[in-house]
């Protein structure tokens, strides 16, 4: 039945999945099998860079599931991303073994440096990949579940929820900066050597990680499409648009949100886990509240409430960031700030949303002219969407300030 939904899914999603899967095959090939002198050769740094973008795209998609489809503006997705990254980083640290600077077979370098006598309890098990992989899913998922359980049950909504997710991120930032937390403090985890026995620096490993990111993103697209297309997905949007109505219909809106929030946090965690071996470091900076807000702008630029939008947004904004930081580093924050303002004011539905309404309008105009030719009332086909079509229009009432929800 789910497969059936896959086939009937939007063509755009099919195209996106196809492109991702194709990239997963072609890019590593162009990197590994082609001579560096060839025009088709993809240099390793491009592989790593785009691989990183794909992780960001997965993160943006995760945020879109809760923000675009359920109206929960989480400013804490960077934290879930970082937690997944730390879980993977801990595995990579354990893989270093005695090749560290201090040559301690058990303790990572920073622990030797900080005079740890033995491995803290929460580092046990991370020498196994399966355990680390489980933690990548479990830690962000559990945090999101516990946090969401409290927050949604007591009906913390709107900006309040955004602010407390930001406070959560901030608290984690402060915690991970502490040396005695046992996560390497300020410097985080770095100097990785191998993953699953392969050298993380090797071109082949990088290509494999790129392919893994692309395939994971493709799977996440399919999963999100399946969730959104199900009855639950309709319910999710119903909660976004009229939460109290769903309650009076007997739905537990808090559970609806909690499920999406937890799934989304796990997706973010996976993104973080794929990100860390590709960039070679994870540090508390990933918990910065500002990085979490940056994720929001990727999603907004591409178009929230669409599945391809966040991916396009993440790729575009990050490509822009790379370009700016290379060419005009001091202007990047102006550009980013301007982007926040411009998107909210001029492009509330994002690129994909704008494209859709432009096409919708075009179709409506065409239908209207056809109807006029047929002598019918040109007003009849009301395909023109109302303002409430904007996904996540949080207030049904008009444009006026209200006491914050």
């Amino acid at each position: 039945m789910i497969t059936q939904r896959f086939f009937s899914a939007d063509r755009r999603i099919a195209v996106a999945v196809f492109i991702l899967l194709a990239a997963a095959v072609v890019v590593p090939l162009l990197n590994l099998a082609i001579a560096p002198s060839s025009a088709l050769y993809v240099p390793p740094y491009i592989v790593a860079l785009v691989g990183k973008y794909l992780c960001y795209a997965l993160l943006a998609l995760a945020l879109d599931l809760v923000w675009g489809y359920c109206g929960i503006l989480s400013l804490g997705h960077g934290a879930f991303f970082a937690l997944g990254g730390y879980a993977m980083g801990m595995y990579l640290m354990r893989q270093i073994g005695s090749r560290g600077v201090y040559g301690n077979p058990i303790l990572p370098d920073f622990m030797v440096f900080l005079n740890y006598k033995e491995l803290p309890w929460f580092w046990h098990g991370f020498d196994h990949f399966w355990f680390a992989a489980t933690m990548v899913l479990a830690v962000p998922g559990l945090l999101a579940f516990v946090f969401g359980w409290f927050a949604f049950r007591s009906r913390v909504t709107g900006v309040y929820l955004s602010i407390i997710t930001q406070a959560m991120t901030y608290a984690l930032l402060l915690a991970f900066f502490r040396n005695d937390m046992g996560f390497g403090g300020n410097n985080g985890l770095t100097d990785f050597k191998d993953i699953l026995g392969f050298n993380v620096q090797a071109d082949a490993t990088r290509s494999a990680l790129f392919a893994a990111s692309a395939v994971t993103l493709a799977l996440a697209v399919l999963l999100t499409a399946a969730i959104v297309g199900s009855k639950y997905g309709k319910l999710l949007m119903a909660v976004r648009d009229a939460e109290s109505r769903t309650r009076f219909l007997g739905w537990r809106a808090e559970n609806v949100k909690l499920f999406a929030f937890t799934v989304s946090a796990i997706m973010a965690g996976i993104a973080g886990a794929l990100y860390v071996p590709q960039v070679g470091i994870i540090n508390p900076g990933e918990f910065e509240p500002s990085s979490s807000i940056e994720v929001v702008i990727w999603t907004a630029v591409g178009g929230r409430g669409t599945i391809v939008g966040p991916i396009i947004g993440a790729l575009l904004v990050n490509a822009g960031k790379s370009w700016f930081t290379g060419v005009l580093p001091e202007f990047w924050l102006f550009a980013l700030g301007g982007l926040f303002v411009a998107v909210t004011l001029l492009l509330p539905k994002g690129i994909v949303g704008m494209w859709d309404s432009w096409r919708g309008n075009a179709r409506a105009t065409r239908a209207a002219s056809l109807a006029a030719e047929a002598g019918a009332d040109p007003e009849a086909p009301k395909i023109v969407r109302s303002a409430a079509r904007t996904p996540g229009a949080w207030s049904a009432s008009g444009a006026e300030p209200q006491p914050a929800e």
Partner: protein
Amino acid sequence: MSKSNTILYLDGVSASFDGFRAINNLSLVLDKGEMRAIIGPNGAGKTTMMDIVTGKTRPDEGEVFFDGQVDLTRHDEAEIAMMGIGRKFQKPTVFENHSVEDNLMLALKGPRSIFPALFHRRSAAEARRIDDILGIIRLGDKRDELAANLSHGQKQWLEIGMLLAQDPKLLLVDEPVAGMTDAETEETARLLKDIARDHSVIVVEHDMHFVRELGVKVTCLHEGSVLSEGTLDFVSADERVVEVYLGR
């Protein structure tokens, strides 16, 4: 008063916000299968009463029982809805970004937990039920239309249709004909009378023509308690009601 044969039983209920008593020692009994119209000027406590019955607001004191035995003050909105109380808001509230059909599908009686919803597939029985309701609320030709594109009156009907899909024992209907044309109003009265044949219904309404058309027992609220109760003729002849409405 015995609770045994009542569908809704309120006794001595009070609720206040910041010292303002929205509901003041309100007592109201609705028998099974009964339709009741509630009238009263603005601020009489009609909406707050509905909030209390549906679990949105907790009363400061008093008893609220559903179906003779369930203490509603101990349950929240979703539980109360699942027990069989449906509510239509004063302002029509439908899922604007969903089609008419999807609106009904979400309201349709059935399991209300996440995983069944995730793997839900429409059964033939459900499709039939949706067809039936679309017929009842006269929206058969709007099945695939987005709810946002419906007219105000059509949204009211869709919301009533969603209530029907829930298959509740008791319907609370807040101002169903606000903003409707006369023809639509008449149609709505007929629709509600249809529904009342196998449901208990409370209708809050200002429109006296509509209330007359319903032809049921009327309760007039004022300042959070019952001012007068009886047939419409009886209530409208009551000195105090006249005074409240005309401000004499």
